[in-house]
């Protein structure tokens, strides 16, 4: 059975590109732009990897971190990767403390992102 990947990003084109690219690598990919829908998907399905943007509502918030908490509670086997257009040492520490395996800075090449996913699987 193929690994299942959930992509959560409010930039629609990013979701489109990630789905198309990772399906080509043999993964089953769900995409959503909405945090609440992401929570429902995590509750309903087992994901090997959840890949989420840090800011999901176009605000200065860190909804991606909250989503990780939800994933850790519902689906502890899932690896979480956070993507953000901005990173810092403090943010990286916060992401790790919440249980994220990686915090990667956008833009990132998809072959590189795929290498990170393969290492986790």
């Amino acid at each position, binding site marked *: 059975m193929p690994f299942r990947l959930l992509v959560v990003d409010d930039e629609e084109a990013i979701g489109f590109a990630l789905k198309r690219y990772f399906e080509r690598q043999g993964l089953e990919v769900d995409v959503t732009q909405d945090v609440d829908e992401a929570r429902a998907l995590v509750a309903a399905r087992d994901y090997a990897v959840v890949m989420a943007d840090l800011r999901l509502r176009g605000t200065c918030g860190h909804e991606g971190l909250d989503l990780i908490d939800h994933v850790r509670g519902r689906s502890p086997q899932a690896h979480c990767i956070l993507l953000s257009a901005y990173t810092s040492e403090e943010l990286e520490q916060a992401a790790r403390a919440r249980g994220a395996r990686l915090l990667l800075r956008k833009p990132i*090449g998809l072959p590189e992102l795929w290498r990170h996913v393969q290492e986790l699987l």
Partner: protein
Amino acid sequence: LSHERSAAQAALGAAILDHVLSGIVALSHDGSVSYVNRPAAELLGRGPEECPRLHASQLFGAGAAAEILPQASASPAERRLALDLSRKDGGTLHAGVSVIQPPAGAIDDVGVLVLFRDLDEQRGAEDELRRAEGQAALGRMVAGLSHEIRNPLAAIQGLANVLMAECPEEDPRFEPARRIGELVARMDRLLAACVEAGTPGPAHLETVPAPVLVERALEALPPRWREDGPQVTESAGDLRVLADAAQVVQCLRALVENACEAAGSAAGVRVAVARSAGTRGDRHVHIEVRDAGPGVPPPLLRRIFEPFYSTKPDHLGLGLAVAQALALRNRALLEACSRPGHTVFTLSLPAARRA
């Protein structure tokens, strides 16, 4: 006991007066100096012990003394003046002066109290504050903008990667997709440089010898500038500054690289470390980076720290803007002056208090 207590109180009072920011001078009724605090002596370029024998006209200069000393008929009052006071070395101190004339007999043998501050230093500090505020606002804007641009950039990068993954390399669509990826990487590097210029991290200040900072900056130069290396012409090892070492090294490195590029060679570049020769004596340590390049004409010199401003072809024009941002973070002043045949950048760092 009461004698000891009053002696202790007098010592405390003297210590406080020597550490306030203003110069304070007490003049007797005949216009002779009866007291100066340490800042007053320093501002006027004198030793504290030599002042009490002087007349006000010798201490401040005749013109300033005439303004300060009250007319015989004047009633007790406080006056505020902007005066040019004479320094012992022949220089002039542009001072904001308060002249306080206490009621007769209110303070033993004190006719006039004179309080003054260096206006240039005060204006410099105000300019610096305005510049820091402007820089911080620009930094926030750049950081916000870069965040907004990086999201669509990530999408463009992803879509280019999808195209490349779906086309064999010989497909005519493969090469355009690869080039799109390259351009995205270039824009991302540009954004990273802008963010760095606008928002360097907070400075973690520590006491560090200034010559060590210079040494580390020179070691960090690219190899092409290290061979005929810039010369350190003057370097007093005991000059310690309060600085974030990594940030100041980065700032100095940018200054030295700029000097090498301006002159086309590292051979004529000179770096010197010296204590402040300014009116406030030992408060700052200057690090000077001098090149023997063609010099920068005044209209261009005024814009030299602006981001994206460069007189050199193929330069982004961020090196000196980053250096200025780092200087501001470290409460240092970075200034440039230029004549045909040379340009000097001076980084003035706060001196560390001696242990």
